[in-house]
C-alpha cells in the first residue's frame, strides 16, 4: 500500500510519519511511505493544511496529527 505524508518538514509532520509507520507495523500491513515536502506537489494535491495523509494518492486527512485509531481505520479500509 502506498502512503504519502504531506508537509514541509515541521515537527508535526515528522510525528505523523512516525505514527503511520508504527501503526502499519503493529497491524502487520506492508506499506511504502513517501514524504512529500515539495509545496508545489502539496498544493497540487489540493491540501491547504499540513500535516496531511494520502493513501493510494487519495487525501484522507489534513490539518493535524492523526490518532493511531484513525490511521488504523484508514489502513484497514484500504486493505
Amino acid at each position, binding site marked *: 500500500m502506498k502512503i504519502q505524508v504531506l*508537509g*514541509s518538514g*515541521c515537527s508535526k509532520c515528522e510525528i505523523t510519519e512516525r505514527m503511520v509507520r508504527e501503526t502499519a507495523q503493529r497491524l502487520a500491513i506492508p506499506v511504502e511511505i513517501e514524504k512529500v515536502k515539495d*509545496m*508545489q506537489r*502539496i*498544493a*497540487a494535491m*489540493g*491540501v*491547504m*493544511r*499540513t500535516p496531511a495523509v494520502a493513501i493510494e494518492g487519495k487525501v484522507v486527512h489534513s*490539518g493535524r496529527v492523526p490518532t493511531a485509531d484513525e490511521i488504523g481505520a484508514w489502513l484497514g479500509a484500504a486493505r
Partner: protein
Amino acid sequence: MDMHIVPRDHRALTLVAAAVVAWGVVYASLGAFADAVMRASPFDRTTHFGDAVHFFVYEAPKVMLLLVLVVFTMGVVRSYFSPERTRAILARRGGVLSNVLAAGLGIVTPFCSCSAVPLFIGFLTAGVPLGVTFSFLVSAPMVNEIALALLFGLFGWKIALLYMGLGLSVAIAAGIVLGHLHMERHVEDWVTALPKTAAAATPDEVPFGARLAAGWQAVGEIVGKVWPWILAGIAVGAGIHGYVPEDFMAGLMGKDAWWSVPAAVLIGVPMYSNAAGIIPVVEALLAKGAALGTVLAFMMSVIALSLPEMIILRKVLKPRLIAAFIGVVASGILLVGYVFNAVL
C-alpha cells in the same frame, strides 16, 4: 450553528462546567495568592527586587489562566471552521465586503504559519482574489488568541479589543490596497499555472463533545508550547518593573518623540518573536512611560511581519509582491501608531 448533542456529550459538558467554576474560583483568588507568597517570602514589596517578585507571582498565574481559557474557547470555535469552508465562503463573493469577511475569518479559521503557502495556493486556485487572500494572511497570524489573551490579562479588555479592531483594520486595508495594485502577475508562475479547483467544502457533523475535546487538545498543544516564552517574557517584564525608573521610556518611546513610531516598526519587522514573549515586555515598557501607539505599532510589526514568514512566502510571491506586502502592512501599522499617539 447546529450543535450535535449526543448523550455522551452531557458528561463532557458537566466536566467543562465544573472546570469553568474552578477556573473562576482560582482566578478570583490570584491577588490573595500573590500576597500570601509575598508574606511567606523574605522579600519586601517596597524594594526593587520585591516589587519584581510580586509582579511575577501575580501576573504569571493570571496570564496562564487567561491563556488556557481563551485557547480552549478558540479551539472549540475553530472546530466549526476549516480553511476549505472559509475558502468556499470567500470564493463566492467579491468587493470590499469580502476583505472584511476574510479578515474576520482569519481570526477563527485554524491557521499555522507553516501552512501559509499551501493555504495561499488553495485560496488563489479556487478563485479567491489576491487582495482578499492577503486580508486573510495578515489577520490570521496578527489577531491570534495568544495575543488577545495576553493583552486581556496584562492591559485589560479595552486594549485587547482595540488591538483586535486595529489588527482587523490593517488586514482589511492592506488587502484592499494590494488588490488595487493588480499584482497578480507577481505571483510565481508555477502557482498561476496550477489548475483551478472547485471551492467545495463538505459540512461536518461532529458531536459537541468532540469539539470540546478539540478545545482541550488546543490547550495542550498551544499552552504546552508557549508557556516558557510567557514566563520568560513576564520575568523580563518583572525586571523592568522593579528596576527601570518611572518615565525612563518617555523620552525614547514617548508621544513627543515623533520618530519613535517608525523606529518601532523598523525594529519590529525583522524581529521574530511570538506574542507570548513580546507582550509582557511591552507591558512593562508602557508602564515606564512609553506611548501606547508606539508600543502597539512595535507589537503588531513583530507579530504580523517576520523574516522567516517572508522567506516561506517567497516560494509563491515574486520579490516585488513581497516588498509591496511588507510596505503596505508596515504603512498600516505606522498609521495605527501615529493615530493612537495623537488621539490618546
